């Protein structure tokens, strides 16, 4: 024992420093107390930097329009009705692709996760698809489906179903085998097992996949709308590029950002509501 040196504080406590009994209200190893409005803080900082840069002339108006220009341009586009019109077209595409992609991804994950045959047939092709960028697949899709709405929705779908599949499948496969044993002892039917154990057990994974999917849907949208389109936010930006209207491009960018951020926030809200039973580091 004598060879060990105890920390100094143990050997000789400083007589003057009487530790005040300060009660910790948060977990010592946790991330700390939740910051009110924390989600918007980083964005706000970015906006401040952008405004200062534009006001002082550090950012050239020709390369990046000032925030106030973006606001006035948005107003003008709204007056002309161009923004609403293009946004409606884009949103419809995104929602349709997203909805179909979620259904496809979930179904494939269930089949692949619950049966060996399903896994053998589905998992390989999905992993291969995952490695192929949507952009590279586009020429083929155009040949097959033309340049109409179908092609655009399918492209979004193909981008969306991958993260839903991967995370749902992973969530499903990592369900504790003890619960499977429990299901056997209480005599659950196959369907009841899926409904009571598999689906709720895979829900955290599914919701994580959904977060990737919603932002992914808007990303794929950019690709399809800028390559060939006659309407949509991407088309509006592409048109602005030909006329050198930086402010409209920035309006489009901001809109994409807001839409992506907004839909992610929505999914996170759903996540918090749906997973109230969980106790995690963030709580």
């Amino acid at each position, binding site marked *: 024992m004598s060879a060990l040196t105890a920390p100094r504080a143990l050997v000789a406590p400083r007589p003057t420093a009487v530790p005040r009994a300060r009660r910790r209200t948060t977990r010592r190893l946790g991330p700390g107390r939740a910051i009110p409005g924390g989600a918007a803080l980083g964005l706000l900082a970015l906006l401040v930097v952008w405004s200062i840069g534009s006001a002082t002339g550090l950012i050239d108006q020709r390369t990046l329009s000032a925030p106030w220009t973006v606001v006035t341009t948005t107003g003008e586009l709204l007056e002309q009705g161009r923004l609403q019109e293009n946004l409606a077209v884009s949103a419809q595409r995104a929602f349709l692709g997203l909805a179909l992609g979620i259904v496809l991804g979930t179904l494939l994950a269930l089949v692949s996760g619950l049966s060996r045959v399903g896994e053998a047939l589905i998992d390989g092709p999905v992993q291969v698809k995952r490695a192929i960028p949507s952009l590279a697949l586009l020429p083929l899709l155009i040949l097959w489906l033309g340049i109409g709405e179908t092609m655009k929705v399918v492209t979004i779908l193909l981008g969306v179903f991958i993260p839903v599949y991967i995370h749902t499948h992973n969530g499903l496969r990592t369900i504790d085998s*003890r*619960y499977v*044993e*429990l*299901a*056997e*002892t*209480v*005599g*659950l039917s196959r369907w*009841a097992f899926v409904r*009571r*154990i598999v689906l*709720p*057990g895979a*829900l955290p994974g599914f919701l994580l996949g959904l977060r990737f999917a919603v932002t992914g849907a808007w990303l794929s949208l950019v690709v399809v709308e800028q390559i060939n389109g006659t309407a949509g936010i991407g088309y509006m930006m592409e048109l602005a590029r030909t006329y050198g209207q930086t402010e409209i491009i920035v309006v489009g960018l901001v809109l994409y950002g807001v839409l992506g951020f907004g839909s992610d926030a929505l999914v996170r809200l759903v996540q918090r509501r749906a*997973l*109230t*039973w*969980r*106790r995690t580091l963030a709580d």
Partner: protein
Amino acid sequence: MATHPRGLTVIPERSAVPPPVHGVLADERTATTDGTVVVRDLVRAYGLGEGDGRVLRGLDLSIAAGEFVAILGRSGSGKSTLLRALAGLDHDVHGTGTIAVPDRVSVVFQDSRLLPWARVLDNVTLGLRGPRVRELGVERLAEVGLAGRERAWPTELSGGEQQRVSLARSLVREPQLLLADEPFGALDALTRIRMHGLLRDLCARHEPAVLLVTHDVDEAIVLADRVIVLDAGRIALHVEVGIDGPRDPADPRFADLRAQLLAALGVPLTERTVS
């Protein structure tokens, strides 16, 4: 493994029977209607066990309807394997024998095994359907002292409360046979004593046959009608508890029985402490 310290069992170095192919269960499994349990010549073997890998070696066991049997045994004696065989949960072993168990069998595990995403009442009624299911679930929850906690999440309950929910879940099925695999092993000593009383009352009311696997000699004596000591896959000792009225550890008959059971478990006299 081959020689028991007290020379109770001597196992042949190599069995004449060739080890069965991995994962082959050649059981004869039937259902009894009168709530009795009959096990004959039960053999269970894991691929990588000692010697020929056999964990249960021709075990015979009968449990009458409504009888409470406790199984004691050291780690690896095969007591959990026996319970899993009766529950029909052993898929990854090979073995032979005949098992006859009642139709309605419930299992209580060492962990409460509640679904964290389902509320307490939904956990209790898991897998049951019918108009009176919720009512029955509420009734059983009240019986284990958890009235009013139906809407709680399992993580909001203490370990003892979670195990009581698990008891309610097994009893709502009105089992003829209750299999309990060290159900109180993870609880603190005080909670365990309270749970003993609860389990005794519940069994008196619902009268299932019970097979309780435990490490705890006192728990076995307090609860069971009959105690079986398992050693190296065979029954080493078989005693009726036969103490009427409250079972007090200070009772000399209690102490005698404990000494007898500890001896069968191979615990030398010098290491025994009276708790």
